């Protein structure tokens, strides 16, 4: 059975990627998981400089989901390269670095720096974080902003460029198209849904940042729909995520059109999920006689629903 997939020039041994911000810098899990068995690790979102992020409370649980407003606490790109990458290389991890900027120039600068670093395999352009005021989502919410960031980054890097799209838009497929037109090697989606929870006893928001991003199983049906729409609109690979918590969920995204999938929130619940996902996908492929996982991508059959009697 062949689980490998291709994202631009990057070949992943399997389609399972740890989602950005949900796996620390990867090294945190090295004790529990052989990081080289993951398709890839999307790093925590990195700015040029270190950031403190938002005061706690930073997360709150909601029905089948969670809100987060971490605020991109991070060590900055230089310490990432100096302190984390060497260990990730040693552990054999495939590294997709998730980059965040407040301005277009910052994205370009980050791309430049990371392109020279050994062990970086792709760049995920975070133009979709709902938790910071500057930059980010303001690019990701428009076709122009998306086009501009992607084309600027493409000019300075040989690495595969993967803009990460926000679901907080009217037409995500048109944003994916803008990314493709700008030369993106793939798109990844969805980032979190802008959301809010209020403590009725105190009448205050439950998050210090007032609003945060919703992730987890709750959002899965919306994310699957968006992946399906993007797959029908662009030719570049789509990396799907949003609430994946089992092999069946991962397969649902793949069948909807995702070439690879990311797992975020479910990793918090089960850090050992990766081998279960692999086993479940392999079992499915065996049962259905699927030799290459790539053959499943976008295989959803919308034409042949068994026809019920239709109104005359």
């Amino acid at each position: 059975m062949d689980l490998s997939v291709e994202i631009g020039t990057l070949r992943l041994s399997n389609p399972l990627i740890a989602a950005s911000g949900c796996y620390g810098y990867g090294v945190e899990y090295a004790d529990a998981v052989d990081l080289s068995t993951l398709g890839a690790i999307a790093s925590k979102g990195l700015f040029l400089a270190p950031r403190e992020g938002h005061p706690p409370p930073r997360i709150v649980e909601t029905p089948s989901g969670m809100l987060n407003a971490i605020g991109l606490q991070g060590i900055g790109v230089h310490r990432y390269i100096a302190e984390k990458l060497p260990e990730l290389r040693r552990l054999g991890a495939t590294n997709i670095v998730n980059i965040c900027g407040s301005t277009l120039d910052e994205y370009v600068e980050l791309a430049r720096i990371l392109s020279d670093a050994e062990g970086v395999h792709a760049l995920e352009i975070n133009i979709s974080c709902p938790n910071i005021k500057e930059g980010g989502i303001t690019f990701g919410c428009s076709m122009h902003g998306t086009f501009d960031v992607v084309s600027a980054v493409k000019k300075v890097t040989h690495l595969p460029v993967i803009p990460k799209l926000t679901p907080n838009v009217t037409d995500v497929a048109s944003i994916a198209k803008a990314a493709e037109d700008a030369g993106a090697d793939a798109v990844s989606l969805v980032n979190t849904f802008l959301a809010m929870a209020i403590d009725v006893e105190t009448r205050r928001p439950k998050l210090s940042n007032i609003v945060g991003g919703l992730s987890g199983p709750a959002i899965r049906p919306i994310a699957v729909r968006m992946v399906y729409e993007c797959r029908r609109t662009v030719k570049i690979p789509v990396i799907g995520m949003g609430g994946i918590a089992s092999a069946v969920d991962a397969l649902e995204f793949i069948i909807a059109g995702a070439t690879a999938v990311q797992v975020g929130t479910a990793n918090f619940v089960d850090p050992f999920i990766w081998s279960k996902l692999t086993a479940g996908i392999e079992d499915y492929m065996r049962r259905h006689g699927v030799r290459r996982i790539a053959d499943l991508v976008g295989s959803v059959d919308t034409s042949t629903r068994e026809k019920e009697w239709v109104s005359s």
Partner: protein
Amino acid sequence: MPRDVEARVLQNTRLSPDYNVITLAAPEIAAATRPGQFVMVRSSHGSDPLLRRPFSVFEIVRSGNRIEGLSLLSKRIGVTTRLLFDAVEGDVISCLGPLGRPFDPVSPPSEAWMVAGGVGLAPFATLTEALLERGAKTTLFYGARTGAELFYLDWFASRGVRLVLSTEDGSKGERGRVTLPLEQALRETSSEVMIYACGPERMLEAVSHVAGKFKTPAQVSVERVMGCGMGGCYSCVIPVREAGGRHHYVRSCLAGPVFTASDLVWDHE
């Protein structure tokens, strides 16, 4: 290395309308646990509730010499603690651990003074055993809302732990906060002392303050909302002092839950 065990409930003892002690068949985790470490538990089939919740390991449960599992001391405040309260023998609870930075037990001549507020008693059973092995003289300052919520007194007493009790309503021990008898004792003692504290953050802040006043070292175990317990989510951060009077956020699931009290920056500074 943490493990994830689908642990059977061996016993569930209700101590009061809100408190229970639940014993879980997770011997692999129990055997590896050091005092002050925690597990992340989840007791559910569907995805609501979704996230695990952190609980200190209360006791290492043995049958003869064999480790059978671990127990948790739980106070019912929401959905998961309600599930733990209602659980019956034979139920299965998913248990991930051991996790976090443990207490550092002192040896004589230093004395160990444990300060517990309410369910903050939880890490002190295992710590007591580690201290006894080292032969350290131990005291437990234990405060609760009311006398009926002071648990396991015989357990500690039978192990030679000196008990100093206090309740907010005065129904048992001294009336008032647990930090009052602590401060008085510090004033009177001439021994070398290490303070260990666990309880509400306001209590930890007060303990740190008192400890600082008497230049006594203190280790405090903090409770922050934890999404993963393994360093993945950055939800559990707490501000610590940096050189140069600056502060920064560290993850309390990795750098803690036990911190040197003087490293922490408190809300009211």
